[in-house]
């Protein structure tokens, strides 16, 4: 599938796996909630990945669109630019019912999400030590 088949994304052009500074800035007077959200997200992330994987395996475009959209929305809270972009691509594939490259993009997403998870854990651990 060529890139031309996708609409232009206005997602932030960032390759950061996780922008901790931007994330924390939004929780100015609610820092506890910021860290609570990290724990909560890390606990549900495997199920979100599983949903996408299942949709790709069963070639269910509607399910891929919804599950990728949900993950993209969740990731946006963390300013996770690179993973968000890949989730968006999967969402568009589901929307357009063209899933040829979905498996490849999903593999890239898994790698990015692994980086992202590690960054999140590190970020939360620094705070716990402090």
């Amino acid at each position, binding site marked *: 599938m060529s890139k031309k088949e996708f*609409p232009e994304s206005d997602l932030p052009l960032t390759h950061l796996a996780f922008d901790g500074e931007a994330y924390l800035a*939004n929780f100015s007077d609610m820092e506890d909630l910021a860290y609570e959200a990290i724990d909560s997200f890390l606990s549900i992330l495997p199920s979100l990945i599983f949903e996408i994987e299942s949709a790709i395996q069963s070639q269910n475009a509607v399910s891929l669109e919804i599950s990728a959209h949900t993950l993209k929305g969740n990731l*946006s809270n963390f300013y996770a630019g690179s993973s968000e972009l890949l989730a968006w691509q999967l969402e568009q594939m589901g929307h357009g019912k063209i899933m040829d490259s979905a498996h490849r993009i999903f593999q890239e997403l898994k790698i990015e999400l692994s980086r992202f998870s590690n960054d999140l854990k590190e970020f939360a651990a620094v705070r716990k030590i402090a």
Partner: protein
Amino acid sequence: MIDCMANKTILVVDDSEFDRSLLAKALLRKNNFNVIEANNGEQCFEILETKPVHLILMDIMMPGIYGTQVLLKIREKFNPMELPIIMVTSKADASDVVGSLQSGANDYITKPVNFEVMMSRISTHLKLAEISEEMSKLKEMAALGAMIRTYNHEINNPLAIAIGCLNSSLLKDERAVDRLKAALWRIADIVKKIQVVTEKKEVEFQECGNSNKMIKIK
């Protein structure tokens, strides 16, 4: 000054448990709102049937029934001033934003939700809803006052004539009986006209001195 944010209930509609819960917790911590959560359109409708809600934050894209469809159904029952709805959307969903606003959404916020912006938008729409409610009450009171003045003015005169005729020793006089009949028919006519006016959705007013208004019934 009206504290429009106090004791208000916000309904958060989002199929993503994580996003929904994050918004709910932020609303609670920022302003101690009463927060109710719904994970789809059906739950949203059920809640609106049973609980008072002052504002809705709703995700545009949800499985099953799309956010804009939920929005249209809510608007069949509640106008934008009665129940403000703020849509929550991804930055990439610009066309959905336009669709939502055309379908009756009051406003939108984009993900990642900036909590300060969210609070500011909520505050604005709660204030507008409160002002609109106050205006409606004032209009109702004005209409009620005008209605009472109309009854007083239109009925008192023929009533006084009728009573005068009844008290008159000349009641046996045919002219007095005619005047009495005319006065009573006038009262009956006025009552009928006022009934017609009250069945209308809008009423017209007319000045009746001292800056007072009466309902226009003729």
